[in-house]
């Protein structure tokens, strides 16, 4: 299958964290492609490395995280290997917020409480787009209106604590897209919000994506959100991508036992009330001194020592465009077809 050049391609991304107890291999060789105007979902449990992966793109991980590999960004304005850029230097700062922007999980703490929302949105415009404070202010009011904040010309001079959580997340999105970036990274943007507001935020993001044509890298631990938002999905477990493919295929034909576990743990309409939700046994181990073999082995229902612990599992293309990191999946996929 020939595909256009991806907007962002991550190759063999590894992130090691130096802790007091040793080196923690948080991300262990991740490959991802994000295409212009499309949405890639990254799903996994807390602590699997998805957040680190997303922050590595902007180079904003704390200094004790050592990243290696490459993150090729093919923007309309030029191409860069983001990992090779010096973090904090002018070049990557020109990309941050301008070409790639990010929204975070906790809207309540993501704004500084000391400055007005308007100040914090104008700041990014004054940095990248214009030098005129009045222009920046007008643009900020305009964008606040577009993300659905009523009477933005009044709201702009308010402080974050005067906003509700949902409104703050809207303001956050406004701030992220005000410079019309090519890629928007959304790190669990709805986790901290009420369910009804979650839906509104997701809708706004989709509308804005259509309007501005940006790509979205959507990180979540909620399979339900993935289904409604994404074109493609990557499932992450213990610092590795364990399954990767178009959203339809993953939902109809999950290959990796971990993905199946995740899908089985979503409550469905028409489920028998007596039926218990499936859960994955055990818990995610601390990734210090892990073996190279399958990380899911201790929790896997299909685990079979003779097959699984032979060698490190590569990401196998089980069906066209659909990859899984499981020896068993291959066998089973073959039988199923």
């Amino acid at each position, binding site marked *: 299958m020939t595909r256009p050049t991806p907007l962002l391609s991550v190759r063999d991304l590894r992130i090691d964290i130096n802790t*007091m107890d040793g080196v923690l291999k948080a991300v262990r060789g991740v490959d991802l492609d994000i295409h212009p105007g499309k949405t890639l979902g990254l799903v996994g449990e807390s602590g699997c490395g998805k957040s680190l992966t997303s922050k590595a793109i902007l180079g904003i991980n704390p200094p004790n995280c050592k990243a290696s590999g490459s993150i090729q960004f093919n923007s309309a304005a030029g191409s860069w290997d983001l990992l090779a850029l010096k973090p904090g230097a002018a070049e990557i700062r020109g990309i941050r917020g301008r070409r790639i922007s990010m929204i975070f999980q906790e809207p309540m703490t993501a704004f500084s409480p000391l400055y007005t929302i308007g100040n914090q949105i104008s700041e990014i415009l004054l940095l990248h787009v214009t030098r005129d404070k009045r222009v920046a202010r007008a643009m900020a009011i305009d964008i606040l209106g577009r993300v659905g904040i009523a009477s933005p010309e009044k709201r702009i001079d308010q402080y974050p604590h005067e906003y509700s959580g949902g409104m703050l997340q809207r303001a956050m999105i406004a701030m992220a897209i005000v410079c019309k970036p090519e890629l928007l990274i959304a790190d669990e943007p709805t986790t901290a919000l009420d369910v009804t507001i979650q839906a509104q935020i997701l809708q706004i993001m989709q509308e804005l994506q259509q309007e501005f044509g940006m790509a979205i890298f959507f990180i979540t631990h909620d399979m339900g959100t993935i289904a409604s938002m994404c074109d493609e999905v990557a499932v992450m477990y213990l610092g590795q991508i364990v399954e990767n493919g178009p959203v339809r295929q993953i939902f109809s034909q999950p290959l990796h036992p971990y993905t199946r576990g995740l899908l089985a743990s979503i409550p469905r309409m028409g489920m028998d009330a007596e039926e218990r939700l499936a859960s994955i046994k055990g*818990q995610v181990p*601390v990734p*210090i001194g892990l073996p190279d073999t399958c990380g899911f082995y201790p929790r896997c229902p299909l685990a079979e020592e003779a097959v699984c612990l032979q060698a490190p599992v590569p990401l196998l293309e089980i069906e066209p465009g659909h990859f899984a990191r499981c020896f068993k999946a291959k066998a089973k996929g073959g039988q199923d077809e």
Partner: protein
Amino acid sequence: MNQNKKKPQGGLLRRLLGQMGFLPQRMVVDETEAYYAASQWQLMGRKFRKHKLARIAMVVLGLLYLQALLGQFIAPQGLTTYSSAFVNCGPTPIRIVDDSGRLRAPFVYGIATERDPVTMRKHYTEDRSRIYPIQFFTRGEPYRFLGLFESDLHLFGVGEGGRIFLYGTDGGGRDLFSRIVLGSQVSLSLPLVGLSVSFVLGLVIGSISGYFGGIVDSIIQRLIEVLMSFPTLPLWMALSAAIPPRVPMLQMYLLITMILSLLSWTGLARTVRGKFMSLREEDYVMAARLAGVSDRKIIMTHLIPGFMSYLIVSMTMSVPAMIIGETSMSFLGLGLRSPVTSWGVLLKEAQEIQNVALYSWKLIPLVYVIVTVISFNFFGDGLRDAADPYT
């Protein structure tokens, strides 16, 4: 660390973690298993040991307290012993090489006295003709060890006729080293006694305030506010000025202790109250209450262990202020007074700058105060870091 606290804490924690599914049946790495399985106090101990300065401070404090405990044995002289022949005599040098250049066991020379014909001040020089080897575990002045038994055994001394003043003598011809060692019994015990008093006061008053709330709470809170707004040192000064000059030693000691603890329980009571208020809202307390556990039992088994480590830390942190308070007041002649001897009382002789300039060894008690205070600071710092074992 605290051994008898270890069991219930660790047990409770493990049970809780187990119930919540945090203790996995099978761990991939041994090290992580050790981490999850360790009790809270073990974790605290481990974390405390990582704090190097706190460890050093703990050793220093241990030595200081050991020295205070064995005071009468370590000090070559008693508090009242003086020799008018050796007033303001400098520290006796300890030698290991004699005049003929021969290396020998540590010894001191005899002390010769001469008077400056102009200033009439006494000068002390070494009398090289007399040599006194330092002896360990010698017989000397009799004393009652910790009020338990009579003894005349001393850690060190020189033979009959010789004199050894490690830190020199004071204006009354008394051995400064002995006085510092014996003074440490007062200086080091006083903050601990004072602390226990304010600990109990703070815990009881804070718990009452926090548990009952309502009108009791507001009265106590207003009282605390009033007490807190007083300037500490000046009020201490005013209160200790009220102590009659000629009260018995023990009574004076207790009065000063009371004064010191009178103002220091307020902060503690506030935190206890705050913790009570927030803990009352915690789910596990609610669960206990729903299960029909009595209030008293909830307080004793759930609330107090819940912030014990915090209390211990904050108490350790307030020791330095007490030591400094006692020292300053005694120094000004408003606190402990002779014959009670503390480091502050000893420093009174350092009030005159000229006096200090001439006899610099009179500042040695100061070194002890500073070392103690700093050690307590580091120790408290280490405890504070350790008290939060899961961060």
